[in-house]
């Protein structure tokens, strides 16, 4: 699915990713854990192509294509999805209009026909119900006035509608109570079909109780310093990140 090789990236001249390697096959769920400032969110931004994140070296191959050479929207159309840690509010653009535009852009890119208004509405309603968002949220401005939990559920709703090949979940658990966490996790689990791959970025082990990863990686100071199976996450929960050394504890990125 995706091969990340020796990826190095900086923002405003400061190197954040310092040679990151990661290989993900179709259907796999990889969790990336690590202390604040390790570069977890940066990975999602670099893979999605955010402005201001400078790739200094390395390569990323996504479904056989050179991902780093693609525009942001082309990456999304090719099947990459990033669930934001802090979803953006867009007043004046309704969630419905936003998602319809998005779903159809991606369908057209896949060579499928655009959905009719009725068909889209049917799908959107089902997705809303799946993440426990009232239908009225479709009519509201994108994330406008949503609570933290509602924003996160809205991200998962989008993921369900867009049917991506690779989902990057950037701290989709932060700020959620247990009920909301379960809704988010159920949404994610419903999309695990043996083909779709996931990168689950999280600070805490908690989310991984609900979304069971195939692999767990510890990211510290811009590199993956340890990889293992789900048991690694439990270990982290017991010992914290202190064993990584003082340097990685700097929470400045």
């Amino acid at each position: 699915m995706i091969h990340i090789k020796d990826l190095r990236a900086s923002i405003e001249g400061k190197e954040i990713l310092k040679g990151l390697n990661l290989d993900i096959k179709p259907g796999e769920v990889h969790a990336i854990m690590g202390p604040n400032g390790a570069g977890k969110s940066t990975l999602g931004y670099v893979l999605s192509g955010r402005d201001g994140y400078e790739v200094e070296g390395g390569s990323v191959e996504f479904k056989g294509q050179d991902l780093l050479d693609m525009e942001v929207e082309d990456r999304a159309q090719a099947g990459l999805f990033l669930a934001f840690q802090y979803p953006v509010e867009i007043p004046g653009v309704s969630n419905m209009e936003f998602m319809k535009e998005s779903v159809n852009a991606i369908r057209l890119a896949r060579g499928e026909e655009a959905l009719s208004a009725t068909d889209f509405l049917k799908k959107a309603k089902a997705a809303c119900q799946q993440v426990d968002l009232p239908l009225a949220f479709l009519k509201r401005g994108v994330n406008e006035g949503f609570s933290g939990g509602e924003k996160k559920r809205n991200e998962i709703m989008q993921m369900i509608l867009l049917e991506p090949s690779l989902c990057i979940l950037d701290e989709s658990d932060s700020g959620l109570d247990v009920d909301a966490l379960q809704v988010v996790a159920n949404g994610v689990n419903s999309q695990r079909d043996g083909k779709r791959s996931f990168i689950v970025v999280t600070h805490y082990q908690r989310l991984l109780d609900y979304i069971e990863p195939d692999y767990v990686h510890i990211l510290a100071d811009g590199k993956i310093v340890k990889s293992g199976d789900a048991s690694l996450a439990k270990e982290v929960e017991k010992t914290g990140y202190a064993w990584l050394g003082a340097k990685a504890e700097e929470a400045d990125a």
Partner: protein
Amino acid sequence: MSQWLNQVIDRASSRMASGDDWLNPVRSNALHQLQTQAWPGRRTEAWRYTSLHPVEALAGRAANESVNVSIDSDSFAVPGLDSVDILFVNGELRTELAQLDVPAGVHISLLSAPGDAARTVVGQVFTQVKPERHLFGLVNDVMATEGLIVDVDAGVKVTRAIRVINLVTDGTESHNRVLVRVGDEAEVTVIEHGAGSAASMNTAFAEYQLGTKAKLEHYRFALHGGDAIHIGGSHFKMGESSNLNSTLVGYGSQLSRLDVDIEHAAEHAYAKFNNIYLLAENEHFDLHSTIEHAMPNGTTEENARGIVGDNAKAVFNGRIHIHRDAQKTLAELNNRNLLLSRRGQINTKPELEIYADDVQCAHGATVAEIDDEALYYMLTRGISRSKALVMLNFGFIQELVEQMPNEALRNWLQPQLRERFVNMEVK
């Protein structure tokens, strides 16, 4: 004094000397004002950011006759709108008034041939609502030989909208006037629909008198462009407990200037005024609004949103004047602008002048660029950059479009505005 204005004065004087226009007494007062007012230059505050060179350049040029100009009625058709349409082309009436299906209690007549009742309306409204300080309003006073008079009887609730369409064609000079009296407790919708991008000069002024508890839903569409020069105003005098809901949409052109005045002449009136302007290429648009709170317990909510792309230039001046006796006034004025290009220009000036001590007022103005984070978010959802920009732009003004009470007008306007955004490039 400009040569163009001298010509206007000469033409008006000779017409008034020879003709038997029943309005001559009123017009001669305006003529006198014109003769004494100074031609505005860059140092005149009200015209500081709007150059009158395009008007000055008209001097000595003969205007085209508009006889037999053919008009494409699709250009102003609004699907689903239930309205009585009165069409003027270059200031000349093109609608057979006798053929109109006018709702009961509404009387439509012409400035050139009013009946006795209409003369009373004209006496109450013509030059009685519009302040004298508007130079081109005075030009219109003396030059608008034709105009529309709409009189709504007290207590009548009119469901069909009255729409006045003003079209202009190449090389013409024209002057339109609308006078509306809304009787006590009457309700009506009036639409001033102006369009035309050809090189032309048009002034269009409208005066509205609202009776006690009268309710007016008002729209002004100034959908001009190109080399058109469009200067006009909509002016309202609010009766006691009257209600105004007005929306103005402007596209700008070589020179577009609109003045809106709302006078709270009695207590407990409510005025809502929304304004949207969308400018591209080399267009210019200037809106000056003045709200006079002369009496206590009045409310005004004014929201203006503008988007300026390319080399376009917007001017917004919103003034709220609260007189000493206007206690318990609630007044809000907000102007937000989106600047899409480094070469675009926005001059905004909200003004609050308060002489009463027990009022609630707020005003503000902002100029912003496209939100990069919102744009990035949309791109990560596979939406193309150009499409995302259109959606973000439209989102910026959508709120005001949605507040338009008339659904047919909303449905007609939305795709047009979108289309306009598609053509606006962000740099």
